[in-house]
């Protein structure tokens, strides 16, 4: 068969090739998938690639790179082609990784317990006492079920002879399992037939085991079992994954400030009070978890958390202090430790690594620098790995000087020639099959019968063909990993599990205060964007039509509401278009704020919601020309998108307290805007303007009722008093009163300020006397309503979000 795809595929001479066993000869387990690539046209392959990229973008899969000029979020790079691993080979990898997880767990139990391995000389004291990750306050702490490692990952590489080696262990809070899952969803969709026909192992069972083991070992009491996922926050490089896993596993995603320790137990600050937390899956580094006993400068942690764990009142996964085993220096001691602790030989070798903190090792490393890679000794050190052979004389001398000054900061590791795997390369003029350096991160979780290994993993490819390091921080990409099986595929899905009655009761009620605050602001920003877009649209349309060069009421309204600068421009038309279109324009700024709030709500937000927002933000500020026509088009899109979001909120969200806060955010914002708009229109006098109806999206209603041009009395009736018009003042104010009553029913009386009085006044308005431009009563009422809305927003913040209210902080809701 003609293998046209292999025409440009680089032949590997000094390293292992995942695809070919000899030039032109496919490894058997690749044959079926490769045939599918071959039979597909290049156009089809490019379509699949486009689909992959679209899914990544629209699902908002990101990896945050601290120094990336593209800003904090970078789209996740996913290659079109999966890495395929044969069943028999996987069996070996899987049992080796499970063994290693068991071994490392035993080592942690020993180091944080009797330290017998040190006494017997199997573990040099330097690796423990010299390691910044050995947390002395955690010594003697009994972890539930004796499980220190709930989730473990090993970074594997394949040497030229085809054998697998362990490059590094991830024992603290391994990342990548969630990305593996996302990769799987995307790639199995574009190769759905092949995925099914090849009997690729599914991943869901692995995550179910992880979840069930946590539930099994977590302490009990004070209400239904609750596991949370603790994240450092949206700026962490793998935040997407935190949110993704939290949603997938059904755990609330929390930050340190959402939790507090009281009576030696951990509690989630919840809208309705405090809720006992029984288990914490943490993505926060060990030493940041508790500023009281660990790093005092950590603002991310929970004071007292360590003591709660010490008292056995909370399960922390992985156990605090497990960072200790991420030191490469340990690798050389594992074979003997394995024999001693498990009574069997270590199944998969690790690359030889030495700690330079020992003088002999330091001198050795310096002597053999050309054949070594020098790495940081502890993950806490932000030192880049360096290949000795890459250095010129000056750099080499500088490195040696640094190593001599602080030898304890470095480990030296042997070099291995990493394998290559096929990638779909569309960077050149013609898309083709290329080859890239590949490594594999494999995950294991604690289960009822020892460690269970995820059948698959995160394959990572380097950005350059011959690279020796693979790091997502350095711009690498990832691959889905297909583990083939001869038997039946376990099609269990975590998303379709059966729900027990006790879970029904809790559904949708695990709202942290921070989450509710974000929902509230999401509502406000949606509405603010909508208002701004409608206002700019009306103003630009009027400006095109009229020759009037003076400042119209609409322009003044734009200035008051911040769409335009407070002082005049010579060319309001140009300024309006800029406000709508420019990258630094008012609307673009609002959309970015909306997107930032939505970003922090990712785990609560459906993918469709996110798509609407990400499309909008993507187009904002990207128009090739700034013209009234382009501005109007963009504003139309914006208004439509906001209507879509509002539709989702109306139709797609359960009416829990989170939704109520989102709705209150909307209504407060809309009430303020409508009051301001009406005040401007009324003050200008003259005939009732049609734009007022436009801003309130009430033109059609008006026409269907009156069949006349706008007149003040019916316009004001519709926009102020009509309780059935969802844009009217009355609708907002009465809705807010209703929500407040519902909140009060659950949480006790709420200080609503002047709102109740203003509402009473609103209901007392008489059309014949008060609904006209000269009515002072109406003008005053609009001002009072606007300031009542402002005060209410402040009050909600104090009471429900910031916990500044002493009644809230006193924990009256403690069970």
């Amino acid at each position, binding site marked *: 068969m003609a293998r046209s795809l292999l025409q440009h595929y680089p032949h590997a001479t000094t390293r292992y090739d995942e695809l070919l066993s000899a030039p032109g000869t496919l490894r058997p387990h690749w044959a079926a998938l490769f045939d599918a690539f071959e039979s597909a046209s290049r156009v089809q392959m490019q379509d699949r690639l486009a689909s992959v990229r679209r899914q990544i973008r629209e699902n908002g899969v990101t990896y945050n790179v601290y120094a990336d000029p593209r800003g904090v979020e970078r789209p996740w790079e996913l290659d079109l082609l999966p890495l395929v691993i044969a069943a028999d080979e996987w069996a070996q990898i899987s049992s080796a990784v499970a063994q290693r997880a068991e071994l490392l767990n035993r080592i942690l139990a020993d180091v944080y317990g009797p330290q017998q391995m*040190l006494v017997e000389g199997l573990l*040099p*004291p330097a690796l423990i006492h010299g390691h910044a990750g050995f947390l002395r306050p955690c010594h003697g702490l009994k972890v539930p079920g004796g499980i220190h490692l709930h989730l473990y990952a090993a970074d594997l590489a394949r040497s030229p002879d085809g054998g697998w080696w362990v490059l590094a262990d991830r024992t603290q809070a391994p990342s990548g399992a969630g990305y593996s899952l996302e990769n799987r969803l995307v790639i199995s969709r574009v190769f759905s037939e092949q995925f099914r026909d090849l009997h690729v192992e599914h991943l869901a069972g692995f995550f179910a085991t992880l979840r069930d083991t946590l539930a099994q070992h977590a302490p009990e009491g004070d209400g239904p079992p609750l596991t949370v996922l603790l994240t450092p926050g949206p700026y962490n490089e793998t935040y997407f994954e935190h949110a993704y896993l939290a949603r997938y596993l059904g755990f609330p995603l929390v930050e340190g400030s959402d939790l507090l320790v009281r009576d030696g137990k951990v509690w989630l600050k919840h809208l309705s009070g405090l809720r006992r937390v029984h288990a914490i899956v943490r993505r926060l580094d060990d030493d940041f978890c508790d500023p009281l006993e660990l790093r005092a400068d950590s603002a991310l942690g929970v004071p007292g958390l360590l003591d709660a764990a010490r008292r056995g009142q909370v399960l922390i996964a992985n156990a605090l202090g497990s960072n200790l085993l991420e030191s490469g220096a340990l690798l050389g001691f594992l074979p003997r430790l394995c024999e001693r602790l498990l009574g069997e030989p270590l199944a998969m070798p690790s690359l030889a690594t030495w700690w330079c903190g020992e003088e002999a090792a330091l001198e050795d490393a310096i002597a053999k620098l050309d054949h070594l890679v020098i790495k940081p000794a502890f993950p806490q050190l932000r030192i880049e790995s360096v290949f000795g052979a890459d250095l010129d004389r000056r750099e080499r001398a500088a490195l040696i000087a640094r190593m001599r*000054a602080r030898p*304890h900061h470095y480990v030296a590791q042997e070099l291995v020639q990493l394998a290559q795997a096929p990638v779909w390369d569309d960077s050149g003029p013609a898309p083709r099959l290329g080859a890239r350096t590949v490594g594999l991160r494999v995950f294991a979780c604690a289960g009822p019968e020892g460690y269970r290994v995820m059948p698959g993993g995160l394959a990572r490819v380097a950005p350059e063909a011959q690279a020796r390091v693979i790091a997502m921080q350095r711009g690498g990409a990832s691959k889905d990993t297909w583990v083939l099986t001869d038997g039946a595929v376990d099609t269990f899905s975590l998303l379709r599990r059966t729900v027990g009655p006790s879970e029904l009761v809790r559904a949708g009620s695990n709202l942290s205060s921070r989450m509710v605050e974000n929902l509230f602001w999401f509502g406000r920003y949606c509405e603010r964007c909508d208002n701004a877009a409608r206002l700019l649209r009306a103003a630009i349309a009027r400006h095109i039509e009229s020759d009037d060069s003076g400042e119209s009421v609409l322009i003044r309204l734009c200035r008051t509401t911040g769409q335009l600068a407070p002082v005049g421009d010579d060319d309001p038309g140009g300024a309006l278009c800029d406000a709508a279109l420019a990258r630094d324009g008012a609307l673009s700024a609002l959309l970015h704020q909306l997107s930032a709030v939505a970003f922090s709500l990712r785990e609560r937000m459906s993918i469709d919601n996110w798509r609407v927002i990400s499309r909008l933000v993507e187009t904002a500020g990207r128009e090739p020309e700034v013209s009234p026509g382009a501005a109007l088009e963009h504003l139309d899109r914006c208004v439509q998108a906001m209507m879509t979001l509002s539709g989702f909120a109306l139709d797609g969200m359960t009416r829990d307290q989170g939704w109520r806060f989102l709705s209150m955010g909307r209504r407060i914002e809309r009430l303020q805007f409508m009051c301001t708009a009406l005040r401007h229109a009324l003050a200008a006098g003259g005939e009732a303007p049609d734009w007022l109806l436009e801003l309130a999206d009430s033109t059609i209603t008006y026409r269907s009722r009156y069949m006349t041009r706008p007149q003040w009395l019916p316009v004001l009736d519709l926009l102020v008093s009509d309780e059935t018009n969802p844009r009217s003042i009355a609708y907002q104010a009465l809705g807010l009163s209703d929500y407040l009553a519902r909140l009060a029913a659950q949480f006790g009386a709420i200080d609503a300020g002047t709102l109740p009085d203003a509402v009473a006044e609103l209901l007392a308005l008489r059309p014949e006397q008060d609904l006209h431009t000269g009515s002072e009563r109406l003008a005053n009422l609009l001002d009072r309503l606007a300031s009542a809305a402002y005060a209410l927003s402040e009050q909600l913040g104090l009471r429900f979000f910031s916990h500044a209210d*002493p009644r809230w902080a006193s924990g009256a809701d403690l069970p």
Partner: protein
Amino acid sequence: MNRMRYHVLHRTQYRYAWPVSDSRQLLHLTPRDTPTQRTVSHRIDIDPEPVERARRTDYFGNVLEQLSIGSAHDTLTVTAESVVDLTPSRAAGATRSPAWEHVRDRLHQVGPAPLLDPCQYLYASPHIEPLAALARYARLDFRRERPLFDATLALMRRIHRDFEFDPQATTVSTPLETLLRQRRGVCQDFAHFMIGCLRSLGLPARYVSGYLLTQPPPGQPRMVGADASHAWVSVFCPGLGWVDMDPTNCMQPGDQHITVAWGRDFSDVTPMRGVILGGGEHAVEVQVTVTPEHEAPPAPRPGPAQPLERG
């Protein structure tokens, strides 16, 4: 050897600009028992009353008191009172201690290590980073094959000579590199620096936190609260065990040093460490008074002619 009985009063008061609604503290204020020291009585009073309070032993065997205060307060006062007996043995002499390189090599051997306890104090800790520059400084006294005890004593004397006591020169987080350059600081800096020198040579050294007898000039009453906590160094000498050295006062602690706690450096034995919610700006006031429980005419004894330096 004579038994000395001391009364120690250690009061710490925080005053906050704004009320503190939640406060958690860890206290290292309880003197630990040693072969030459025994606690006769001890109590810690806390105002306001904590909602939770527990005592446990930390990783290094020190007594750790943890407390949490849940009610709003703008002042926190912690008063520790102890009565302690000291029965110092004769100051360890320069008898036979092994050559320092021998001790170093012994402790760094890979293999069954009978000397696990000193091994804990060989490496970097939050405030003490072993540096080649510190090893160079120390090498002047650590000549080839010199007995460890002699060399350490000489190092202590040189640090005392080279460094000036200056409470204004440093903060809690002044790095050793800076100390090496400016050569001024308080007792904590003297101790950190000496430990850094020893560890940079591959030798085990620990940080001891405690108190020093208030020694008034003749004919004057004792100054209540004029003192602070003190810190010194302990070095491990095979055959002798842990040997204390006080580089601030250039002496081997005997019957005037009361040990509270030890660890790798200050961060392990901070007398009071905590996390508060609220509070804003705060002012802290510390008083330490150490008086002999039974007044007796001071016996003439060897020691520095000038009053001991503290801090």
